[in-house]
């Protein structure tokens, strides 16, 4: 194989998004949805998560729908306010890129010229002319924004997409039935938006579970006798979580207390003696270490 042929093949792989590892956005293709199925339009609440890693900013009433590797958000009222999806990138992941130029890109379809990318990094970043805004023509357009990650960033960096202006510009005017539909969100180092990279579902799920995971209907853990007076239930998280998670756990019976839960495992105990013949087990669990 000639060098020219090798370079051509490499260029094709690049164009096809086969060169992976550069995207700091998790679930950028909206393939993971552990919390539920949203294939029908669902009303959204401010600050809630629906598809993994994506939080809703709701200043105008709206609905969200998983439209198949895309998410569609529709305003259901007319008002001045924000209606957007947002993802926070934790410090450990953005830290190596402080002071560097990065580019966020995504595909957006919208009937509103208020659909855009906004970046929050301790403060609202003025993206100026580097920030594309959707034409509102109803066709799929690739939006991108290039900016420098503040070298003194103290917290997380947040990528926001939807009906929103930078904070200093106030809230946009949103009309009922205005919508935006987003896919293939990518944040990468450099001043150029490159093709979206498709990770395997397993890889994407594992990345999401660093921030949240929950039981499936058939997945339970049994409590075992630990000392004469108590039984313990414990399990390791599927991946190391970002921080010690908040937990919502239900049990077959008994009053369990979480104990020394950390970012590697969950544990809870219940008062129960050896002679107690009842079975104690989890019936559901949700662990949340989101930002």
């Amino acid at each position, binding site marked *: 194989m000639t060098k020219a042929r090798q370079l051509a093949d490499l260029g094709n792989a690049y164009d096809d998004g086969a060169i992976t590892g550069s995207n700091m956005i998790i679930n950028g293709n909206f393939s993971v949805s552990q919390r539920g199925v949203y294939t029908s339009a669902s009303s959204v*609440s*401010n*600050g*809630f998560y629906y598809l993994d890693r994506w*939080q809703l*900013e709701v*200043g105008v009433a709206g609905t969200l729908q998983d439209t198949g590797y895309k998410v569609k958000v529709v305003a259901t009222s007319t008002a001045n*306010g*924000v209606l957007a999806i947002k993802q926070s990138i934790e410090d450990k992941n953005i830290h190596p890129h402080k002071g560097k130029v990065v580019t966020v890109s995504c595909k957006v379809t919208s009937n509103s010229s208020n659909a855009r990318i906004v970046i929050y990094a301790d403060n609202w970043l003025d993206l100026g002319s580097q920030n594309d805004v959707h034409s509102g023509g109803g066709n799929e357009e690739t939006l991108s924004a290039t900016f420098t990650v503040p070298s003194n960033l103290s917290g997380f960096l947040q990528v926001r997409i939807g009906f929103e202006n930078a904070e200093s510009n106030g809230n946009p005017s949103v009309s009922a039935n205005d919508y935006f539909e987003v896919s293939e969100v990518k944040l990468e180092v450099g001043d150029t938006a490159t093709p979206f990279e498709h990770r395997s579902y397993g890889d994407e799920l594992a990345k999401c579970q660093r921030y949240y995971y929950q039981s499936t209907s058939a997945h339970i853990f049994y409590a075992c006798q630990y000392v004469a007076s*108590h039984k313990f239930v414990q399990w390791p998280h599927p991946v190391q979580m*970002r*921080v*010690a*998670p*908040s*937990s*919502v*756990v239900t049990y077959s019976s008994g009053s369990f*207390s*979480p*104990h*020394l*839960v*950390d970012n590697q495992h969950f544990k809870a*105990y219940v008062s129960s003696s050896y002679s107690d013949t009842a079975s104690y087990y989890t019936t559901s669990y949700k662990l*949340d*270490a*989101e*930002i």
Partner: protein
Amino acid sequence: MDYNMNITTAQYQADMDGNNSNIQATVDGQEVHIPLDPANRHYAEILKQVEAGTLTVADAD
């Protein structure tokens, strides 16, 4: 707009040794056990609301 969690109840939970190990709280209508880790978003919100004087965390039973 800021997201203010709706926290209606909050109480420390003690472990078997009597030490506070987590907070049991009702957050947005759901009962949640929250570790005492400032990097946990629920605990950070509790600290914020306690600081603002809008929430009190009850002592453990």
